[in-house]
């Protein structure tokens, strides 16, 4: 786990690469100052990134644990901290603590299953970790369908990786869609929820769903219509977190703490929770 002396004390990390994914999303590669990874993690887990004096926030680790060299975070610019992060350059340091929370059950419930990944916008960030984990342990899993949509072509995160790597993997289908027609785009146009319905997906598969709340709501409804079971649909939740360890009292939904008991939940679990997120 974490090499931190205390769960609230972070480690310094160095930004070793920055990829501009979309106009407002950048992917940061972070290493320990002495090289190598800061810590080991599981797909779906998060970590707290902090720019001293600016702020600290929880971000999904987007790289797969199978990557032994570094960790990556895809971060959308939306507030003061993310603005600041976007202004950093390679060689700059941040502090990192984690990993926090649970993870997708890649070694238990997901094993051997057909998997459908459905993501919208920056929602791809937590799923990318699983997608690559599955690719690196391909034999352990069934067919993989990836449905990913965004506002426009320019807002598709990791576009190159998706088209050049994922789409070429065995037993893997990639379905991309954008909300509105755009020059230079030959693919599907339309919102993710409707696209999902058109795709004739295998209702027995396990779904990993992540994206904006409104998309999740409609995709979920669509999936249930198609005969998917809530028991086999996973998503990740995000709430305000300060400590990352379920003690600061912010991130609970009922008696569950998102940062400790989550962020990965099955929809059957979510149904148990009070409607306060």
């Amino acid at each position: 786990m974490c090499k931190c002396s205390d769960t609230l004390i972070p480690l310094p990390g160095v930004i070793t690469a920055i990829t501009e994914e979309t106009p407002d999303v950048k992917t940061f590669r972070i290493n320990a100052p002495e090289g190598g990874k800061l810590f080991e993690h599981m797909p779906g887990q998060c970590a707290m990134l902090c720019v001293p004096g600016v702020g600290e926030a929880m971000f999904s680790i987007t790289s797969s644990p199978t990557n032994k060299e570094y960790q990556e975070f895809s971060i959308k610019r939306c507030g003061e901290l993310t603005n600041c992060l976007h202004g950093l350059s390679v060689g700059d340091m941040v502090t990192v603590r984690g990993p926090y929370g649970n993870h997708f059950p890649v070694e238990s419930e997901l094993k051997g299953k057909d998997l459908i990944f459905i993501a919208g916008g920056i929602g791809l960030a937590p799923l990318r970790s699983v997608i690559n984990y599955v690719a690196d342990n391909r034999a352990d899993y069934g067919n993989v369908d990836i449905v990913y949509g965004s506002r426009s072509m320019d807002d598709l995160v990791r576009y190159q990786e998706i088209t050049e790597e994922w789409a070429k993997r065995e037993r893997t289908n990639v379905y991309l869609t954008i909300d509105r027609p755009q020059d230079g785009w030959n693919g599907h146009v339309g919102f993710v929820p409707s696209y999902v319905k058109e795709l004739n997906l295998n209702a027995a598969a396990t779904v990993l769903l992540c994206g904006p709340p409104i998309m999740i709501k409609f995709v979920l409804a669509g999936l249930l219509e198609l005969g998917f079971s809530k028991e086999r649909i996973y998503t990740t939740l995000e709430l305000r977190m300060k400590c990352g360890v379920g003690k600061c009292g912010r991130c609970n939904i009922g008696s569950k703490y998102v940062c400790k008991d989550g962020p990965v939940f099955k929809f059957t679990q979510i149904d148990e929770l009070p409607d306060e997120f």
Partner: protein
Amino acid sequence: MLKISTDRINELMDAIASKMDLILPVENNGQVNFGIYESGVRVRLDALKTVKSAKDAFFPQSETLYSCSKDLKNLSVTPAKLMDRPFAVFGMKGCDIRGLEVLDRVFLSDPVDGFYKARRENGIVIGMVCNTPWESCFCKAFGVDCTEPGGDATACVVGDGLFIEANNEKGKAFLEMISEVLISETLADNCIMRDTVETVSKDGTEKTALEDDKEQSVSKDGTEKTADADDMEKLRAHKESIRRITEKLPLMSLSLKGWGTETPKDRFDSPLWEKLYKPCLACGTCTFVCPTCQCYDIKDHDDGDSVRRYRCWDSCMYSDFTLMAHGNPRTSQMQRFRQRFMHKLVYYPQNNDGIFSCTGCGRCIDKCPQSLNIVKVIKAFEKEGKENV
């Protein structure tokens, strides 16, 4: 057991303070709070309730976690030093000690909070029997016996004597150390030390039987004194009288039926919350005086060249508590109000073997600016339940 005459409490406190930091109720312009024992302070062991609970001895209102250079090219993190020397907290009441147990389950559960743990390990808690419970007290409802407060040792004042008995090894070692000081300084001609077989049982049933009469009693001239067997009886009778008083207090009989693990599912959505929260000002008074509230915030303090990251108490009643850059899951005060009570009475018990995150200290009753409190919430639902039946 250590006994000392009340007019020699000064000496006892000096003895403790000679060995470690001593934290106890002190008065400042009429207000009693836990504070450090140092010259000039006005000690108020007689005060029943301190304004704040003693929780900040273990979970300070503000606490530095680490400091960090601001130079992003060469960033280094220097963790704050953990508490590494013993200190004593004297005079915590049963409710506050129960509060510590509640906090323990949060901070000492995995992953352990190192800062809290260090303070907890180094802190010696000397509980104190309540002498004059208030009408706002309802600890009994949560199974706290104010005459058996627990802690590492328990102090009780009966007549003109202060008795301290150890409840565990830590307490025992503490008492031995203190007696040594008292003896070596021949300050305590009224100081008696004796061993007990049993420490007070947690549930506060029968207690304190003497193992033998091998008391150590030291007087100024060095002659040994026979233990005062009457003392034990006096102590027992005293506690009994306090217990009788608690039975007369109106809120002690508060019923928790329908809360905790047995809470109905629809409580969260009850329309009653909408009524109950109305007068709430969204201040943090109840939170900050509460012995169990543990929500905190982590903030930066810019020292110019470096950044000091500290954590500080936060309140789920504050409007920005759950505010994020892109939204807020609890937008209304009703939601925040509900969160506080649901947490204390439902979520916490669900996660912690049915133990409530309220100890019945009654501080929220005493201090809420608009007279809201947990008792009103509990009773409102009780009333509603009856009406529904």
